Protein backbone atom coordinates (compact mmCIF):
# COMPACT_ATOMS: atom_id res chain seq x y z
CA UNK A 1 0.00 0.00 0.00
CA UNK A 2 1.53 3.33 -1.04
CA UNK A 3 1.27 6.59 0.86
CA UNK A 4 -1.74 7.74 -1.15
CA UNK A 5 -3.70 4.56 -0.39
CA UNK A 6 -2.71 4.69 3.26
CA UNK A 7 -3.93 8.25 3.59
CA UNK A 8 -7.15 7.44 1.76
CA UNK A 9 -7.86 4.68 4.29
CA UNK A 10 -7.50 7.24 7.09
CA UNK A 11 -9.90 9.82 5.70
CA UNK A 12 -13.05 8.41 7.31
CA UNK A 13 -11.44 8.37 10.74
CA UNK A 14 -10.02 11.83 10.11
CA UNK A 15 -13.57 13.13 9.61
CA UNK A 16 -14.54 11.42 12.86
CA UNK A 17 -11.66 13.14 14.67
CA UNK A 18 -10.31 9.75 15.70
CA UNK A 19 -6.74 9.98 14.42
CA UNK A 20 -3.57 10.35 16.42
CA UNK A 21 -1.90 13.79 16.05
CA UNK A 22 0.87 12.47 13.82
CA UNK A 23 -1.68 10.75 11.56
CA UNK A 24 -3.64 13.98 11.35
CA UNK A 25 -0.49 15.81 10.28
CA UNK A 26 0.20 13.22 7.57
CA UNK A 27 -3.35 13.48 6.25
CA UNK A 28 -3.27 17.28 6.24
CA UNK A 29 0.06 17.34 4.41
CA UNK A 30 -1.12 14.85 1.79
CA UNK A 31 -4.43 16.61 1.18
CA UNK A 32 -2.63 19.84 0.36
CA UNK A 33 -0.94 18.14 -2.59
CA UNK A 34 -3.61 15.62 -3.70
CA UNK A 35 -6.88 16.98 -5.07
CA UNK A 36 -8.51 13.51 -5.25
CA UNK A 37 -7.94 12.91 -1.53
CA UNK A 38 -8.99 16.48 -0.74
CA UNK A 39 -12.33 15.83 -2.48
CA UNK A 40 -12.74 12.52 -0.68
CA UNK A 41 -11.95 14.17 2.66
CA UNK A 42 -14.57 16.84 1.94
CA UNK A 43 -17.16 14.12 1.29
CA UNK A 44 -16.37 12.43 4.60
CA UNK A 45 -16.51 15.77 6.39
CA UNK A 46 -19.92 16.44 4.86
CA UNK A 47 -21.30 13.07 6.02
CA UNK A 48 -19.78 13.60 9.47
CA UNK A 49 -21.35 17.06 9.62
CA UNK A 50 -24.78 15.63 8.80
CA UNK A 51 -24.35 12.97 11.48
CA UNK A 52 -23.54 15.67 14.04
CA UNK A 53 -26.64 17.64 13.07
CA UNK A 54 -29.19 14.82 13.06
CA UNK A 55 -32.44 15.88 14.74
CA UNK A 56 -32.64 14.82 18.38
CA UNK A 57 -35.79 12.86 19.24
CA UNK A 58 -37.35 14.14 22.47
CA UNK A 59 -38.78 11.82 25.11
CA UNK A 60 -42.48 12.52 25.79
CA UNK A 61 -42.98 14.39 29.11
CA UNK A 62 -45.20 11.56 30.40
CA UNK A 63 -42.33 9.11 29.90
CA UNK A 64 -39.92 11.33 31.79
CA UNK A 65 -42.41 11.72 34.61
CA UNK A 66 -43.04 7.97 34.76
CA UNK A 67 -39.30 7.27 34.79
CA UNK A 68 -38.90 9.72 37.65
CA UNK A 69 -41.72 8.13 39.66
CA UNK A 70 -40.47 4.59 39.04
CA UNK A 71 -36.89 5.46 39.91
CA UNK A 72 -37.91 7.34 43.07
CA UNK A 73 -40.07 4.39 44.17
CA UNK A 74 -37.11 2.07 43.65
CA UNK A 75 -34.92 4.53 45.48
CA UNK A 76 -37.29 4.42 48.48
CA UNK A 77 -37.31 0.61 48.39
CA UNK A 78 -33.54 0.52 48.34
CA UNK A 79 -33.36 2.95 51.26
CA UNK A 80 -35.85 0.88 53.23
CA UNK A 81 -33.95 -2.33 52.49
CA UNK A 82 -30.69 -0.69 53.64
CA UNK A 83 -32.37 0.50 56.84
CA UNK A 84 -33.77 -2.97 57.51
CA UNK A 85 -30.36 -4.53 56.96
CA UNK A 86 -28.84 -2.02 59.36
CA UNK A 87 -31.46 -2.74 62.01
CA UNK A 88 -31.00 -6.48 61.58
CA UNK A 89 -27.23 -6.22 61.97
CA UNK A 90 -27.62 -4.04 65.05
CA UNK A 91 -30.15 -6.37 66.66
CA UNK A 92 -28.07 -9.45 65.99
CA UNK A 93 -24.89 -7.80 67.30
CA UNK A 94 -26.69 -6.46 70.34
CA UNK A 95 -28.22 -9.86 71.08
CA UNK A 96 -24.89 -11.63 70.79
CA UNK A 97 -23.18 -9.11 73.06
CA UNK A 98 -26.01 -9.34 75.54
CA UNK A 99 -25.89 -13.12 75.52
CA UNK A 100 -22.14 -13.28 76.01
CA UNK A 101 -22.04 -10.56 78.63
CA UNK A 102 -24.97 -11.93 80.56
CA UNK A 103 -23.55 -15.42 80.71
CA UNK A 104 -20.67 -14.62 83.10
CA UNK A 105 -23.10 -12.61 85.22
CA UNK A 106 -25.36 -15.61 85.41
CA UNK A 107 -22.38 -17.79 86.26
CA UNK A 108 -21.21 -15.26 88.84
CA UNK A 109 -24.64 -15.12 90.44
CA UNK A 110 -24.77 -18.88 90.54
CA UNK A 111 -21.33 -19.21 92.09
CA UNK A 112 -19.48 -20.39 88.96
CA UNK A 113 -16.73 -17.70 89.04
CA UNK A 114 -13.91 -20.20 89.21
CA UNK A 115 -15.08 -21.84 85.99
CA UNK A 116 -14.75 -18.48 84.22
CA UNK A 117 -11.10 -18.17 85.22
CA UNK A 118 -10.41 -21.60 83.74
CA UNK A 119 -10.19 -21.24 79.94
CA UNK A 120 -10.31 -24.99 79.27
CA UNK A 121 -13.30 -26.15 77.35
CA UNK A 122 -15.53 -27.94 79.73
CA UNK A 123 -19.02 -29.26 79.63
CA UNK A 124 -20.54 -25.91 80.63
CA UNK A 125 -18.93 -23.92 77.79
CA UNK A 126 -19.76 -26.55 75.17
CA UNK A 127 -23.35 -26.59 76.32
CA UNK A 128 -23.43 -22.78 76.21
CA UNK A 129 -21.96 -22.65 72.70
CA UNK A 130 -24.24 -25.37 71.37
CA UNK A 131 -27.32 -23.84 72.91
CA UNK A 132 -26.55 -20.33 71.62
CA UNK A 133 -25.70 -21.55 68.11
CA UNK A 134 -28.93 -23.51 67.92
CA UNK A 135 -30.97 -20.53 69.05
CA UNK A 136 -29.31 -18.15 66.62
CA UNK A 137 -29.46 -20.52 63.66
CA UNK A 138 -33.16 -20.85 64.25
CA UNK A 139 -33.60 -17.10 64.57
CA UNK A 140 -31.38 -16.40 61.54
CA UNK A 141 -33.26 -18.86 59.34
CA UNK A 142 -36.54 -17.27 60.37
CA UNK A 143 -35.19 -13.80 59.53
CA UNK A 144 -33.96 -14.92 56.09
CA UNK A 145 -37.25 -16.63 55.27
CA UNK A 146 -39.17 -13.57 56.38
CA UNK A 147 -37.00 -11.31 54.25
CA UNK A 148 -37.43 -13.53 51.16
CA UNK A 149 -41.17 -13.53 51.65
CA UNK A 150 -41.26 -9.75 51.95
CA UNK A 151 -39.19 -9.38 48.78
CA UNK A 152 -41.50 -11.74 46.86
CA UNK A 153 -44.57 -9.86 48.06
CA UNK A 154 -43.01 -6.54 47.02
CA UNK A 155 -42.17 -7.89 43.57
CA UNK A 156 -45.73 -9.16 43.09
CA UNK A 157 -47.11 -5.79 44.20
Amino acid at each position, binding site marked *: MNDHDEIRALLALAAAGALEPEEEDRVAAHIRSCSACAGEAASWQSIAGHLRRLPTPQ*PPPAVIQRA*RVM*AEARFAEEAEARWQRGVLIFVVTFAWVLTIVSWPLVRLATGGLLDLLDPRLNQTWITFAGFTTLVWLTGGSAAVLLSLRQRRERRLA
Partner: protein
Amino acid sequence: MAVVDSDVARLRRGEVDALSELISRYQNRLYRYLVRLVRQPAEAEDLFQQTWVRVVERIRAFDPSRNFDAWLFTVARNLAFDHLRRIRPESLDEPGPNDFSAETPAERLPSNAPGAFDRVLERERASHVAAALTDLPVIYREVLALRFEEEMKIEEIAEVLGAPLSTVKSRLRRSLEQMRQCLDSRYPGADWQ
Protein backbone atom coordinates in the same frame (compact mmCIF):
# COMPACT_ATOMS: atom_id res chain seq x y z
CA MET B 1 -19.09 18.13 34.78
CA ALA B 2 -18.61 19.31 38.36
CA VAL B 3 -22.36 19.80 38.68
CA VAL B 4 -22.94 16.24 37.46
CA ASP B 5 -20.35 14.92 39.90
CA SER B 6 -22.06 16.80 42.69
CA ASP B 7 -25.48 15.37 41.75
CA VAL B 8 -24.03 11.87 41.53
CA ALA B 9 -22.40 12.26 44.95
CA ARG B 10 -25.70 13.51 46.40
CA LEU B 11 -27.56 10.57 44.89
CA ARG B 12 -25.01 8.17 46.36
CA ARG B 13 -25.58 9.81 49.74
CA GLY B 14 -29.31 9.10 49.38
CA GLU B 15 -30.63 12.52 48.37
CA VAL B 16 -33.52 11.76 46.07
CA ASP B 17 -33.65 15.34 44.68
CA ALA B 18 -30.40 14.64 42.85
CA LEU B 19 -32.17 11.98 40.80
CA SER B 20 -34.52 14.55 39.25
CA GLU B 21 -31.56 16.76 38.43
CA LEU B 22 -29.75 13.93 36.69
CA ILE B 23 -32.84 12.83 34.75
CA SER B 24 -33.42 16.41 33.56
CA ARG B 25 -29.79 16.76 32.55
CA TYR B 26 -29.53 13.50 30.60
CA GLN B 27 -33.08 12.89 29.37
CA ASN B 28 -32.60 14.00 25.76
CA ARG B 29 -29.20 12.46 25.24
CA LEU B 30 -30.13 9.16 26.83
CA TYR B 31 -33.41 8.87 24.94
CA ARG B 32 -31.72 9.76 21.64
CA TYR B 33 -29.08 7.08 22.21
CA LEU B 34 -31.74 4.48 22.99
CA VAL B 35 -33.76 5.43 19.89
CA ARG B 36 -30.62 5.00 17.80
CA LEU B 37 -30.08 1.54 19.29
CA VAL B 38 -33.59 0.08 19.17
CA ARG B 39 -35.13 2.36 16.51
CA GLN B 40 -38.65 2.03 17.92
CA PRO B 41 -39.66 5.00 20.14
CA ALA B 42 -41.99 2.85 22.28
CA GLU B 43 -39.15 0.44 23.08
CA ALA B 44 -36.78 3.31 23.73
CA GLU B 45 -39.30 4.79 26.19
CA ASP B 46 -39.47 1.54 28.18
CA LEU B 47 -35.70 1.26 28.19
CA PHE B 48 -35.39 4.89 29.26
CA GLN B 49 -37.45 4.14 32.37
CA GLN B 50 -35.62 0.89 33.08
CA THR B 51 -32.29 2.67 32.79
CA TRP B 52 -33.12 5.13 35.55
CA VAL B 53 -34.41 2.35 37.81
CA ARG B 54 -31.15 0.47 37.19
CA VAL B 55 -29.15 3.63 37.92
CA VAL B 56 -30.82 3.88 41.33
CA GLU B 57 -30.11 0.21 42.03
CA ARG B 58 -26.45 0.44 41.01
CA ILE B 59 -25.43 3.97 41.96
CA ARG B 60 -23.73 2.84 45.16
CA ALA B 61 -21.54 0.51 43.13
CA PHE B 62 -20.53 3.37 40.81
CA ASP B 63 -16.91 4.39 41.22
CA PRO B 64 -16.90 8.22 41.50
CA SER B 65 -13.46 8.36 39.90
CA ARG B 66 -15.04 7.05 36.67
CA ASN B 67 -16.84 9.09 34.06
CA PHE B 68 -20.57 9.16 34.89
CA ASP B 69 -21.59 9.70 31.24
CA ALA B 70 -19.81 6.53 30.17
CA TRP B 71 -21.25 4.59 33.12
CA LEU B 72 -24.80 5.78 32.41
CA PHE B 73 -24.59 4.94 28.71
CA THR B 74 -23.13 1.53 29.59
CA VAL B 75 -26.14 0.82 31.81
CA ALA B 76 -28.49 1.87 29.00
CA ARG B 77 -26.54 -0.10 26.41
CA ASN B 78 -26.63 -3.31 28.46
CA LEU B 79 -30.39 -3.01 28.90
CA ALA B 80 -30.92 -2.24 25.21
CA PHE B 81 -28.78 -5.14 24.01
CA ASP B 82 -30.49 -7.54 26.43
CA HIS B 83 -33.81 -6.30 25.07
CA LEU B 84 -32.72 -6.72 21.45
CA ARG B 85 -31.38 -10.22 22.09
CA ARG B 86 -34.64 -11.16 23.79
CA ILE B 87 -37.16 -9.83 21.29
CA ARG B 88 -35.38 -10.07 17.95
CA PRO B 89 -31.95 -11.69 18.07
CA GLU B 90 -31.39 -11.14 14.36
CA SER B 91 -31.56 -7.37 14.84
CA LEU B 92 -28.05 -7.25 16.29
CA ASP B 93 -26.67 -7.83 12.80
CA GLU B 94 -29.45 -7.36 10.31
CA PRO B 95 -30.27 -3.99 8.73
CA GLY B 96 -33.82 -2.80 9.32
CA PRO B 97 -36.48 -0.82 7.51
CA ASN B 98 -36.03 2.82 6.68
CA ASP B 99 -38.41 4.45 9.13
CA PHE B 100 -36.49 7.54 10.13
CA SER B 101 -37.27 10.26 7.66
CA ALA B 102 -40.56 12.00 8.38
CA GLU B 103 -40.30 14.24 5.35
CA THR B 104 -42.92 13.94 2.63
CA PRO B 105 -42.02 14.37 -1.05
CA ALA B 106 -44.01 17.61 -1.08
CA GLU B 107 -41.87 19.00 1.71
CA ARG B 108 -38.78 18.38 -0.37
CA LEU B 109 -39.96 20.45 -3.33
CA PRO B 110 -37.87 23.55 -3.87
CA SER B 111 -39.40 26.99 -3.48
CA ASN B 112 -38.53 30.08 -5.50
CA ALA B 113 -36.80 31.86 -2.62
CA PRO B 114 -33.16 32.84 -3.24
CA GLY B 115 -30.76 30.18 -1.95
CA ALA B 116 -33.64 27.76 -1.43
CA PHE B 117 -32.09 25.18 -3.69
CA ASP B 118 -29.04 24.86 -1.44
CA ARG B 119 -31.21 24.54 1.63
CA VAL B 120 -33.36 21.88 0.02
CA LEU B 121 -30.26 20.04 -1.12
CA GLU B 122 -28.88 20.21 2.38
CA ARG B 123 -32.10 18.86 3.86
CA GLU B 124 -32.16 16.10 1.26
CA ARG B 125 -28.68 15.04 2.25
CA ALA B 126 -29.55 15.18 5.93
CA SER B 127 -32.57 12.94 5.42
CA HIS B 128 -30.46 10.55 3.32
CA VAL B 129 -27.86 10.29 6.09
CA ALA B 130 -30.58 9.77 8.70
CA ALA B 131 -32.18 7.03 6.60
CA ALA B 132 -28.83 5.35 5.95
CA LEU B 133 -28.07 5.40 9.68
CA THR B 134 -31.19 3.40 10.52
CA ASP B 135 -30.21 0.79 7.95
CA LEU B 136 -26.88 0.05 9.61
CA PRO B 137 -26.47 -2.83 12.09
CA VAL B 138 -26.89 -1.80 15.71
CA ILE B 139 -23.18 -2.07 16.55
CA TYR B 140 -22.45 0.51 13.86
CA ARG B 141 -25.37 2.77 14.74
CA GLU B 142 -24.28 2.94 18.34
CA VAL B 143 -20.66 3.82 17.65
CA LEU B 144 -21.74 6.58 15.26
CA ALA B 145 -24.27 7.91 17.77
CA LEU B 146 -21.70 7.95 20.57
CA ARG B 147 -19.05 9.68 18.46
CA PHE B 148 -21.07 12.20 16.48
CA GLU B 149 -24.16 12.86 18.58
CA GLU B 150 -22.83 12.34 22.10
CA GLU B 151 -19.43 13.67 21.03
CA MET B 152 -17.66 11.15 23.22
CA LYS B 153 -13.93 10.68 22.96
CA ILE B 154 -12.68 7.36 21.61
CA GLU B 155 -11.58 6.41 25.14
CA GLU B 156 -15.08 7.07 26.50
CA ILE B 157 -16.67 5.03 23.72
CA ALA B 158 -14.29 2.19 24.54
CA GLU B 159 -15.46 2.38 28.15
CA VAL B 160 -19.14 2.22 27.13
CA LEU B 161 -18.56 -0.65 24.71
CA GLY B 162 -16.16 -2.46 27.01
CA ALA B 163 -13.81 -2.81 24.03
CA PRO B 164 -10.20 -1.84 23.30
CA LEU B 165 -9.43 1.44 21.51
CA SER B 166 -8.34 -0.40 18.36
CA THR B 167 -11.71 -2.13 18.16
CA VAL B 168 -13.56 1.14 18.59
CA LYS B 169 -11.54 2.79 15.82
CA SER B 170 -11.96 -0.08 13.39
CA ARG B 171 -15.69 -0.24 14.17
CA LEU B 172 -16.00 3.49 13.66
CA ARG B 173 -14.20 3.29 10.32
CA ARG B 174 -16.29 0.32 9.15
CA SER B 175 -19.51 2.02 10.20
CA LEU B 176 -18.65 5.14 8.21
CA GLU B 177 -17.61 3.09 5.20
CA GLN B 178 -20.80 1.05 5.35
CA MET B 179 -22.83 4.22 5.64
CA ARG B 180 -21.06 5.63 2.59
CA GLN B 181 -21.77 2.42 0.63
CA CYS B 182 -25.38 2.59 1.70
CA LEU B 183 -25.65 6.22 0.60
CA ASP B 184 -23.92 5.54 -2.73
CA SER B 185 -26.17 2.58 -3.50
CA ARG B 186 -29.41 4.28 -2.45
CA TYR B 187 -28.62 7.64 -4.00
CA PRO B 188 -26.20 6.98 -6.86
CA GLY B 189 -24.53 10.05 -8.24
CA ALA B 190 -25.20 12.14 -5.14
CA ASP B 191 -22.41 14.60 -4.41
CA TRP B 192 -21.43 14.62 -0.74
CA GLN B 193 -18.98 17.48 -0.90
